[in-house]
């Protein structure tokens, strides 16, 4: 187990290193001279050289990368040119609503996916199977930003049941916060349910096909008991890990969904920053998003290993 944990942590460190190099390279590919951008129109040759030296741009690219990485590891992502605030603060403030949406969508998705995946697997090739898998592909194929608009049109404009836009932290005002989260969470959560229901179905079918299940059936165990007592645990372990591994997909979906519902999250922050050429913010947002994905993947893998004795005891 310890060897497994160490090797996974090392792999994660390697991925994070590669990610940092990719982001650093991307930021260096931005056209235009950052020194000229900071100096404006009126400057002397000397001022140019000084600022260039202060930014470290006269050093080799490797040295620049090391400085850049050191700053980031110390939690210094620079300042926003436009919003006059530290990038770390801006990005973190935007990350919280996005993360809230992702977690709420995961819950909605699992609540829909588990029963529909179960029914589909237990009554394979029946109308139930067709219905739930048809629904799965339908909600999975709907672009989240469009689904959000349709939901607003039906449930806010026509029925007036839910607020169309806005966001309140659920821990500050639970009622308002959750109320405003319903439509966004359904938008992204149904997409997720389509993904997970299919995984549950095929994972369960695979387990139900195994010898120990056939043996239990031969002993006369009833089908429902078979599924709940014998198959579920084995079928759900891979499902749980896949749910975790989809964190990145959900984060990407959240960026689009929150734009529809005017949630002040990562999507709005990044897009505004791009349109304003506020590159420090773009870099900070991308960095935090990707690091979150990589770290969640690590946690999921370790949890999986912990739950699965075949890995834990190896």
């Amino acid at each position, binding site marked *: 187990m310890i060897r497994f944990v160490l090797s996974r942590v090392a792999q994660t460190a390697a991925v994070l290193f590669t*990610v940092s190099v990719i982001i650093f390279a991307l930021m260096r590919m931005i056209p235009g001279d950052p020194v000229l951008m900071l100096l404006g129109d009126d400057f002397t040759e000397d001022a140019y050289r000084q600022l260039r030296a202060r930014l470290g741009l006269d050093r080799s690219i490797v040295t620049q990368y090391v400085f850049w990485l050191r700053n980031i590891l110390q939690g210094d992502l620079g300042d926003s040119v436009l919003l006059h605030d530290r990038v770390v603060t801006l990005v973190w403030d935007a990350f919280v609503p996005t993360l809230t949406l992702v977690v709420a969508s995961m819950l909605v998705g699992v609540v829909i996916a588990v029963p529909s995946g179960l029914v589909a697997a237990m009554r394979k090739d029946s109308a139930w199977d067709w219905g739930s898998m048809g629904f799965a592909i339908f909600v999975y194929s709907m672009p989240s930003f*469009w689904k959000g608009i349709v939901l607003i*049109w039906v449930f806010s404009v026509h029925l007036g049941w839910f607020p169309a836009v806005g966001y309140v932290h659920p821990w500050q005002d639970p009622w308002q916060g959750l109320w405003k989260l319903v439509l966004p969470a359904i938008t992204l959560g149904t997409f997720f349910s389509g*993904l997970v229901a299919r995984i549950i179905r095929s994972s369960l079918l695979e387990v139900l096909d195994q010898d120990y299940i056939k043996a239990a059936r031969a002993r006369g165990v009833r089908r429902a008991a078979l599924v709940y007592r014998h198959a579920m645990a084995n079928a759900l372990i891979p499902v749980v890990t896949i749910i975790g591994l989809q964190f990145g997909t959900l984060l990407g979906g959240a960026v689009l969904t929150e734009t529809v519902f005017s949630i002040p999250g990562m999507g709005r922050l990044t897009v505004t920053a791009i349109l304003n050429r506020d590159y420090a913010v773009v870099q900070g947002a991308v960095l935090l998003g990707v690091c979150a994905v990589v770290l969640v993947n690590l946690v999921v893998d370790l949890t999986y290993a912990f739950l699965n004795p075949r890995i834990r005891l190896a």
Partner: protein
Amino acid sequence: MARSIRVDDLPLAAPTPGPSAAGAAAPRGRSRWWRRFARNRGAVFGLGVFVATLLMAVFAGVLAPYDPVAQGVGPANQGPTWTHWAGTDSFGRDMLSRIIYGARIALVVGVLAVLLAMVIGVTLGLVAGYYGGWVDVVIMRVMDGLFAFPIIILAIAMMAVMGFGVKNVIIAIAVGFIAPFARVTRGDVLGVREEPYIEAARLAGVSGPAIIARHVLPNVLAPIIVQAALRVSGAIITESGLSFLGLGPPPPTPVWGSMIAEGRNFIVMAPHISTIPGIALMVTIVGLNLLGDGLRDTLDPRLKR
């Protein structure tokens, strides 16, 4: 990695009714291949949608009743009528014409982005898998890094760096899809590399690149094609997402994503502006997903259950 099921390998479509034993009996030849594909109703539907979208894109000039960028061809924000089947937008442009032309951008971006990602990713996967050693380590670690980026976030970052426009959208999306192609290819090459016929070719003095091109590539092609088919829908969704955020091709280019975004401001008085392009987008995506599924079941029987 503790991953026993790959999400992309899972059937998207509802299960196909009928005797599965017949489908499992490894058919040979093109007609059997086609028969197996044709038995999958979802896949046939998907193929139909794809062909229809393709025809719409190719013959957009003939099919579109109006110029897609001409303003004031009708009253602004008008719902569907006999003269404007899909209504008009806030500039009085004909929505149907814009949707038809939008298919062109969607398919061009979707197909070209996937082709570009495929060429680069497959090449990297072939080289990494065939040569192994440090080449493999370097290539695959870079792929791991790329793979960690959620596709839309990577595309957003790329657009920030490169600027907007159709060409840059294609490149941004392609970069995001390189890693899956490289991984799939490398995994299969590792198996093929050990086959006796590769050993024979090597002993006969055939060069590495020639062996890769002539003997390795043809034997790992099926999963690559399946991967490509499954990714086109993802590419189109990503393109629409970028356009929706305002990071896609600049206006007045008729793009489904930006049409949906424009309609957001008129959702109360003219809901058709957002909803109708979204239906076009969704039907295309459902079709492509079903088609990709069908191709996987027929071309990559290992994954068939």
